[in-house]
């Protein structure tokens, strides 16, 4: 199935064409309405998002619910590589961006859902979450949801505006970015009697009250190669939840982690940390280079899709040996336009 906001309403979504009966769905929301199903025994249901025209924004909030999924028959929402961000939130590529008062841009109620390459933004000051995961606990206790190379950001400045909230549920986050919220960027919430279990690999959170936060000691929070900085309360706050940190860094030393400045001229040597213009690519002097744990048995690329080389970096961006980013900085700038 295909989604393209340059298509017209009423297509059946079976091709990526922009006209004709088989034209792409005009929005992810339309795809979801047309595709709700019992996926048992049918394999992975993949929907590929493109933006093959002047319109890059998909502007309707989406809720994934009313399906039946299993660990081998699940929903996979992916952005085609040609229309995908390169690690920076950009309006020049496919993006799900909505201003909905007191709501959530992307709500996921189905276990095992996978997101690849999606960028999601909430532009309403009064809206609660950018992404909400509320699947309950995956029935067979397997890997749950997987978010890969997802960027979640938020315009709301109040302290209860959240980039990614996980109510119960099991989620693995890989090469994900969350920033700009007035409140926590990633938060695990014990909900309805279900503990949240979040595993973070090479993720970065910046600004707001918390970077990575567990709201309850009943949750599980594991983080490897993650970085958080620029928060007002604590970069990491496991809050007595079980789990561990492995080769993580933060700005404030919270949860007894080694510090690394959230700065463009020290520590992380990020390209830009100015609110609204964030660019978390790292410079050659960054302390995040070559200190990470090798996770190549699980995945091998960075947030931009570049193959990770040498000793791994902390955070979502690989930095190639020889002083050059695996994706040259001018490429990121070009992709951002």
């Amino acid at each position, binding site marked *: 199935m295909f989604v393209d906001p340059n298509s017209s*309403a*009423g297509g059946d979504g079976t091709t990526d064409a922009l006209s004709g*009966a088989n034209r792409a769905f005009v929005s992810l929301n*339309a795809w979801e309405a047309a595709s709700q199903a019992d996926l048992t025994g049918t394999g992975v249901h993949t929907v590929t998002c493109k933006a093959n025209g002047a319109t890059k924004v998909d502007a*309707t909030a989406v809720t994934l*619910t*009313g399906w039946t999924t299993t660990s081998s028959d699940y929903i996979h929402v992916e952005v085609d590589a040609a229309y995908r961000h390169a690690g920076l939130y950009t309006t020049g590529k496919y993006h799900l961006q909505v201003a909905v008062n007191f709501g959530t841009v992307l709500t996921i109620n189905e276990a095992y859902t996978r997101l690849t390459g999606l960028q999601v933004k909430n532009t309403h000051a009064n809206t609660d979450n950018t992404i909400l995961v509320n699947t309950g606990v995956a029935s067979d206790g397997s890997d749950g949801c997987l978010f890969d190379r997802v960027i979640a950001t938020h315009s709301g400045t109040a302290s209860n505006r959240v980039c990614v909230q996980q*109510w119960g549920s099991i989620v693995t986050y890989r090469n994900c970015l969350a920033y700009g919220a007035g409140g926590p960027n990633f938060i695990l919430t*014990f909900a*309805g009697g279900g503990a949240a279990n979040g595993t973070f690999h090479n993720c970065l959170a910046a600004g707001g009250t918390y970077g990575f936060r567990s709201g309850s000691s009943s949750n599980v929070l594991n983080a490897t190669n993650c970085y958080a900085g620029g928060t007002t309360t604590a970069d990491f706050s496991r809050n007595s939840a079980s789990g561990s940190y492995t080769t993580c860094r933060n700005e404030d030393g919270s949860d007894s982690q080694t510090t690394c400045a959230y700065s463009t001229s020290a520590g992380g040597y990020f390209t830009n940390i100015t609110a609204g213009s964030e660019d978390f690519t790292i410079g050659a002097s960054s302390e995040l280079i070559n200190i990470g744990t090798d996770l190549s048995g699980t995945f091998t690329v960075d947030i931009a899709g570049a193959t990770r080389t040498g000793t791994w970096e902390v955070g979502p961006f690989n930095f190639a040996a020889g002083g050059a980013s695996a994706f040259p900085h001018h490429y990121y700038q070009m992709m951002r336009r």
Partner: protein
Amino acid sequence: MALLLIMGRNNTHADLEKDLRGCYKRGDVVEVFDDVKHDGDLVRNPIMPPFILVRVTDVTKAQLDRLISPQVEDFFDLDGAIRSRLVRRRRHLLEVDAATLPNSIRNQIRDNRYVSVTWAQVRNFLRNKETGATEGTTP
């Protein structure tokens, strides 16, 4: 002008509660668009199942955006925190099967899955599931 993308079938789920709370039902207003999202050329771009497209000629998208609000309810979870949960995917539906729907509109929906109407023609068939009320003279 505005376009209403209407669900033309009942999606179902074996779990009755999930069926009611999570599945789109016939008549639900799935999405509201500016009229640029379909030019009315049904030969080039026919409206395919499961959708019905309704063009409302004398209102704007901004006036109708509220029709895609879900029906939700608040509840206390086991931690005592107030949460919201979905009751129905959409609070509003277009009664495409109403006996009082004019034949001209019914036939266009049946034949083309598309109809162009005024607000006055459609408002009495746009019903709030929660209150049972239909729409007023101004959207």
